[in-house]
């Protein structure tokens, strides 16, 4: 029988699922986390099963990750997000040494040594200004979509400086630019917003080491303006996976496959 396993990452805003069949990705998907961990995970896995025409019983092993991972009753095991990210990133980028993960409401940076072992990590879950929610809140205030904000920022030749480190105060600062006389071009304001987030993430990354290859993942890695801003600071080229949001779910699935193989072997 062909072995299928699943990895689930329950994030603050979205729940990600990856199903592997004999080590290959059979499915990956993202669902909104609108409920408690158990319900969010069930909803996400049901969607995955529908897409793949599988039943729960077809999955040999399910591994959950994310802050609320312990609330998923149908998971065979749980692992922390760093372990899963490391596994997932290494699968795609075997020579990775630094991983920067910027999610909706948290960020993490860690180093991986040549043997694939994580040796340092640092987290930011204290401050919205250091995660995706910062961009969301700015977009909302400026009544722009994130996509428009990105396009606008990429057009800018220069960026305003947003010196406040707090999202709330930064909003006031952005407002002061929008009403400035003479007006500040919107492109420069939104470029400044991306620079501000990149600067905070870079500061977080400096708490560990930035050693190439550097991989950027998490939902914010899809934001091209942010990637550009961060790339200016990081000396080596930032590598961004095609689906940066699913890396921890992929790692969880890979770990699930390892555990399932051990069980099968026994």
């Amino acid at each position, binding site marked *: 029988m062909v072995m299928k396993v699943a990895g689930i990452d329950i994030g603050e805003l979205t729940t990600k699922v990856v199903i592997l069949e004999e080590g290959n990705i059979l499915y990956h998907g993202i669902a909104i986390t609108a409920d408690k961990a158990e319900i969010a995970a069930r909803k996400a896995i049901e969607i995955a099963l529908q897409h793949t025409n599988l039943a729960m019983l077809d999955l040999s092993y399910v591994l959950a990750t994310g802050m609320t991972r312990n609330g998923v009753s149908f998971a065979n095991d749980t692992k*922390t997000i760093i372990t899963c990210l490391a596994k997932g990133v290494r699968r795609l980028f075997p020579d990775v040494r630094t991983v920067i993960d910027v999610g909706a409401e948290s960020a993490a940076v860690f180093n991986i040594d040549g043997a694939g072992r994580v040796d340092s990590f640092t987290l930011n879950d204290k401050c919205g200004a250091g995660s995706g929610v910062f961009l969301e809140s700015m977009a909302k205030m400026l009544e722009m979509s994130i996509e428009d904000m990105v396009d606008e920022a990429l057009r800018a030749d220069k960026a305003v400086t947003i010196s406040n480190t707090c999202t709330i105060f930064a909003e006031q600062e952005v407002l002061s630019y929008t009403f400035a006389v003479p007006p500040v071009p919107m492109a420069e304001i939104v470029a400044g917003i991306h620079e501000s987030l990149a600067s905070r993430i870079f500061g977080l990354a400096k708490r560990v080491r930035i050693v190439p290859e550097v991989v950027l993942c998490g939902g914010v890695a899809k934001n091209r303006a942010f990637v550009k801003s961060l790339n200016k600071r990081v000396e080596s080229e930032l590598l961004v996976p095609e689906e940066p949001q699913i890396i921890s779910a992929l790692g969880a699935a890979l770990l699930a496959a390892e555990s399932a193989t051990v069980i099968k072997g026994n």
Partner: protein
Amino acid sequence: MKIDEVKTDMWFKAMDSWFGMCRHMAEKPSSSKANKLYYELYVKYYERLISATEKGNIVVHPTSVPTEIIYAMDLVPMLVTSSTWQMAYSLKMFDKVLAIAKDYGIMDETCSVHRMIGAFAFKGWFPKPVAFVYAAGGCDAFCGSSRLLSHLYDVPTYCIDTPYHYTGQDIAYLTLQLDEMVNLLEETTGRKMDWDRLKESITIAQKQMELFQEIRELRKAVPSPMENRRAWQLNWFNWIYAGSDDGVAFFRTLRDELKERVEKGVGVPGVEEKFRLLDLFMAPAHSFKLLDWMQKERGANIVSETLIRYDNDVVLNPDKPLESLARKWAGGPLWNELQGTTDDVVRAAVEDAKAYKVDGAIWWDNNSCRQCGCIRMTRDGLLDKIGIPTALVTCDIMDPAFTTYDEMKDSLAQFFELLDSRERS
């Protein structure tokens, strides 16, 4: 601004609750001899403070003042940090006290220890002392909070100016500073230093220090015999029972208990040692149960604390009591690491990591503590020199709302997985 009146009701209320908790802990059937004695002595310490509150002979100090001097003048030292924590803990009012500090304009950017001290002082909840003494080095925020206390309570204060390094000349300077402290206390309290009593306490302090070192040695055993939270108990008693027979009794009881475990080749009851960890900074005072969790649930034994150690060359001479205290201070817990260069911190961390055969280190990244600025150097030092990874646990020493218990637990869980994977590879 001065406080209108000293309102010790809260202080006594906290004592009642604290005594109840201590007695409960001491009487628990599972409580070891050392544990019982610890709680009994903690009660004794506060009973003495209550009696001193009535007599009016309290000297308030942080963990930077040789209390042997205060005892030898027949005064009663009150360790402001542990008293603050104990009051907030007993009355379950961490949030309330921090809110009071904010009401009085003490910014959140200030370390929560000092915010709490400020709140208690503004409210007049501490008993009125005859003097405040503190040191400028290490945690220099004490310069602010101690002066605030002194100002609000309108009592004299003395600041021990501390040298940055501890060469012979620096020790001479520190000795002179302690001498001046004695003069100030004599002037302000009208009491005279009993030099014979001080010499006697130096002899006891030497014994206490030797026991302290023995305990540290015993923790090198595999499995390590000591409970994670015990080191901080040792630290507090090293200050509040400095140079006293009670202090020696506790240290000896604990030493005997650990020695027995080591001789039998057993560790802490109910703990299967999986990881040996080096503690690089202060764990959050409100969540010491986290130390129990990591030990009991994850087999993570903290085997050494770089902040709670004596340099090997510290020897006390009763004939030179103040100089001895200067040496003890400079080479002893907290201040040998908090004062001086980060290179020294890295050196101590690497030495301990090797000697205690640790698998990893933990830095409790305390919000608003400037000492946490050197994390990167220490972490890189441990990793580059001996391949030891360090967990960085974001927390606040007194504010449980800053990082929740579950968040800290998750941070540690990530680290234990990291150690697990290193062990496997």
